[in-house]
């Protein structure tokens, strides 16, 4: 029982990432009808937003401290981050330490901008082209983005720690009446899950309760009619693309402490996120979220030793197996609407 709870918890953080990326993919697909293979790259760029902010905040100047000497006997060079100088030692250290949560604020405008540029500059020209062309051009874009990041940040993963206050683990088992140290769970993963839930809730309520969201939903259902009513639906869809990019970026920012960002993390997540979208049902937002968590948790169950002993290697392929079964048994996906992407 405790193992099951532990695995469910373990699956939540990966599931959150899947859900957020799949949500963005579905938003783009549902509004613009474009299959975006570059979405994983957006997730990766989000993670590198956190890295960048951390570097910006740690930018420091060098002073020579005559009172101390280094091991060669020369006067010691002391690096002082600018934030230390501006805000005082303790506040400055705090700012650097909290750079990952701060990167959320930093990444939103960056990702929105990237999303707008991408949609206006490239995707716009592919609405009328076949899906194969959309897949190919965004695949090319993903390679380009990935290589640009690799050029600037190198090929090695860059550790981006979470704030000290959130690095510990939380003894979940005690709460539920188990022995201590049976179910322990890192704080940051809890934060990640809560954050994902918040973002997902925000996106849904934005679509459900604002006029803008209503128009977008109407456009998803029948783009032509909305256009005939004199509403500039293209502009709104562009904004939705930006939001989808921002959601992927946020997922990336918060994922940085869990998995040190490297340039190919986007590709690794992309394939799985597509599978998640297909399982959830193409064009269904709740489906994407549900399938994201479901597959994350399933993956984590499959990596339990008992299961691996039973079916070796199952943890590597469980998601694909589920996807294949779902596509064959229920091609529309778990919550897919009728008539979306059906030939």
């Amino acid at each position: 029982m405790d193992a099951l709870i532990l695995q469910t918890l373990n699956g939540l953080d990966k599931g959150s990432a899947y859900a957020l990326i799949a949500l963005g993919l579905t938003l783009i697909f549902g509004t613009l009808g474009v299959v975006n293979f570059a979405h994983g790259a957006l997730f990766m760029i989000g993670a590198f937003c956190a890295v960048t902010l951390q570097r910006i905040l740690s930018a420091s100047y060098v002073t020579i401290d005559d009172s101390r000497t280094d091991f060669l006997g020369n006067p010691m060079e002391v690096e002082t981050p600018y934030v230390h100088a501006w805000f005082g030692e303790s506040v400055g250290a705090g700012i650097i330490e909290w750079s990952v949560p701060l990167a959320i604020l930093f990444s939103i405008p960056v990702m929105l901008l990237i999303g707008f540029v991408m949609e206006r500059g490239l995707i716009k020209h592919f609405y009328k082209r076949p899906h194969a062309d959309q897949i190919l051009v965004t695949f090319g874009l993903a390679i380009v983005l990935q290589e640009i990041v690799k050029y600037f940040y190198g090929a090695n993963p860059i550790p981006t720690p979470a704030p000290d206050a959130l690095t510990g683990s939380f003894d979940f088992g005690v709460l539920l009446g188990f022995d201590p140290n049976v179910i322990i769970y890192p704080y940051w993963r809890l934060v990640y899950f809560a954050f994902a839930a918040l973002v997902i809730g925000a996106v849904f309520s934005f679509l459900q309760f604002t006029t803008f969201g209503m128009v977008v939903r109407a456009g998803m259902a029948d783009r032509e009619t909305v256009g005939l009513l004199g509403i500039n639906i293209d502009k709104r869809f562009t904004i939705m693309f930006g939001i989808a990019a921002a959601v992927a970026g946020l997922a990336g920012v918060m994922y940085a402490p869990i998995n040190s960002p490297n340039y190919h993390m986007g590709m690794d997540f992309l394939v799985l996120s597509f599978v998640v979208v297909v399982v959830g049902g193409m064009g269904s937002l709740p489906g994407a979220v549900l399938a994201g968590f479901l597959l994350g948790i399933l993956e984590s169950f499959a990596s339990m030793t008992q299961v691996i002993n039973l079916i070796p290697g199952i943890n590597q392929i469980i998601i694909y197996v589920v996807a294949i079964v779902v596509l064959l048994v229920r091609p529309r996906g778990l919550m897919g609407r009728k008539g979306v992407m059906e030939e």
Partner: protein
Amino acid sequence: MLGLGKKDLGLLAAVAALTLLAPFLLNPFPSDSSLAQFNAGYPDLMQRFVIFGIFAIGFNILFGLTGYLSFGHAAFLGVGSYAAVWMFKLLTMNVIPAIILSVIVAGLFALLIGFISLRRSGIYFAILTLAFAQMSFALAYSVLTPITNGETGLQIALDDPRILGVSATADGSIPVTHLFGLEMRATEILNLGPWQFQFSAGYYLCAAIMLAAFYLSIRIFRSPFGMMLRAVKSNQQRLYYTGLNARPYTLAAFVISGMYAGLAGGLLASMDPLAGAERMQWTASGEVVLMTILGGAGTLIGPVLGAGFIKYFENIFSKLNDNVLHGWFAFLPDGLENAVVAIIHPFVGKGWHLTLGLMFMLVVIFLPGGLVEGGQRIGRLFRRKRGSEERAAQQTPAE
């Protein structure tokens, strides 16, 4: 002749001439000149040209004709490689049984995957094939380690129980792959003045097989079966309404293209007897899509061109480094030289994938028909110009 039309025969003859004379054509620069690094006429690279040519020709039979975009074709290549290496390990170092087995195994594998994936089309098909390929990749890395040797990759060892042949040669080294005694790595070197031309047995075997594969693909393109596949691409709905079931045709195309991929994998292993899981990764699948698109999907010659183009530039671009660049632009003033090198630097060497990605995007955006369409456009441009000149020439006397 050979059941081909005049035009196709010309095309086949042109490809045959190009591949057979490749050691000359790809070595235009004397080996002591500074341009020698642009030479591609060494066996290893030439083999890759034709092997990936085969891979792309096969992919084109599926994607170019039926329009089904498979994102997992590298899986068949990988399976073919493994099959071939196992044949080397267990039966004989002769390449023929290895190649035959790799084609058969890849074909069976394609039959299985195709049977399931082809129930869906469009993006679902792409994702299904991608999922299968990633699954094979993951399995090859983990559970199937006894068969695939995991991360290290499957290699030939000294203690292989080879039924026909010896486990180790008399001097205690690993035997090499051969075709009835003709070693695949055997290379004749012809020195003509400063030029050095290399004729590799392995290359000519691959080239001969590639020509056969190309011939077969022309026959498929021109056959009623090929017509049927094109009908699937242009309007599957209408095909159903006429009472035809498209799936057997698409499945056949899928299996054929899988067998081509297996053949390519088998040849790769025959030239260099090792097989690794990374050959099955989805980036490898993306590469063959790229080759086909770049050359021109749905055209006969396109995939061959695309494969050659990408493999050539991959090789040349990734070899360029800052020293070479500085050498090239030495004629510029120093500041300008450094600036030019700094601009080019991200695109060459390790940054070759950036160039590849950009090229890919540009082709998809501006030239969806690939190099073949580009060539046709240029050809049309010239023809029109000549046409207008002729008209102008005719008009002049009338004045």
